[in-house]
């Protein structure tokens, strides 16, 4: 292989690594991880108590936003007790996997 080809391959590899900085989530693993979320987020219109409001729709939500929201529950920038506890159990990679899966969903009509 020529030096030029090697250089080309190296730059493609570098591009792939950089390009994936915001999309390293594993959808298949995310699909497994959201099993826990389903207890509340899988029941249409299910409500929280005090104050009462429906648990949000999270399937189809934007990827980076889901990542931010889960990190905010971890850091305390969001204060919902159940979600703070759930987020504590997730690694950074778990969060990226969940976000990759959720953001890939299109609604069931």
């Amino acid at each position, binding site marked *: 292989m020529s030096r030029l080809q090697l250089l080309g391959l190296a730059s493609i590899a570098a591009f792939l690594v950089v390009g994936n900085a915001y999309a390293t989530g594993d959808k298949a693993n995310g699909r497994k991880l959201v099993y826990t979320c389903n207890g509340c987020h899988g*029941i249409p219109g299910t409500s929280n108590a005090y*104050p009462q409001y429906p648990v949000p*729709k999270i399937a189809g939500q934007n990827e980076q*936003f889901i990542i*931010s929201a889960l990190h905010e529950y971890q850091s305390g920038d*969001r204060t919902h007790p159940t979600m703070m506890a759930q987020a504590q159990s997730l690694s950074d990679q778990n969060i990226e996997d969940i976000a990759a899966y959720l953001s890939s969903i299109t*609604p*069931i009509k």
Partner: protein
Amino acid sequence: MNRALTLLSFGAVLAFASAPLLASGDVANGKTKAASCVACHGADGNAVDPQYPRLAGQYNEYIQQALHEYKDGRRNNPIMKGFAATLSDQDIEDVAAYFSGMPTKLDTLKGHVQGD
């Protein structure tokens, strides 16, 4: 007696604190108030930049709840705190009515988990 009164007042406080969020907002006023929201959240309520959430078709009361949390600091987000501060309780109801009524790309997890 004292104890009963104390308990009763706790009950009263709880009743006020949990005043239900009502889905009675004015969509037309919501659209006017949402003029600044669409820069990030999209004219159709589906943010293009993935760092911002899609609002179109999200539950009305959930949007209200989120806005109240940004306003009172239970959610600490500098951008949303600024916007929420400009909204009255009525504005929040109206904006929520506007976005929740849009065609949605969101769904619950029903049918989307392993084993479904």
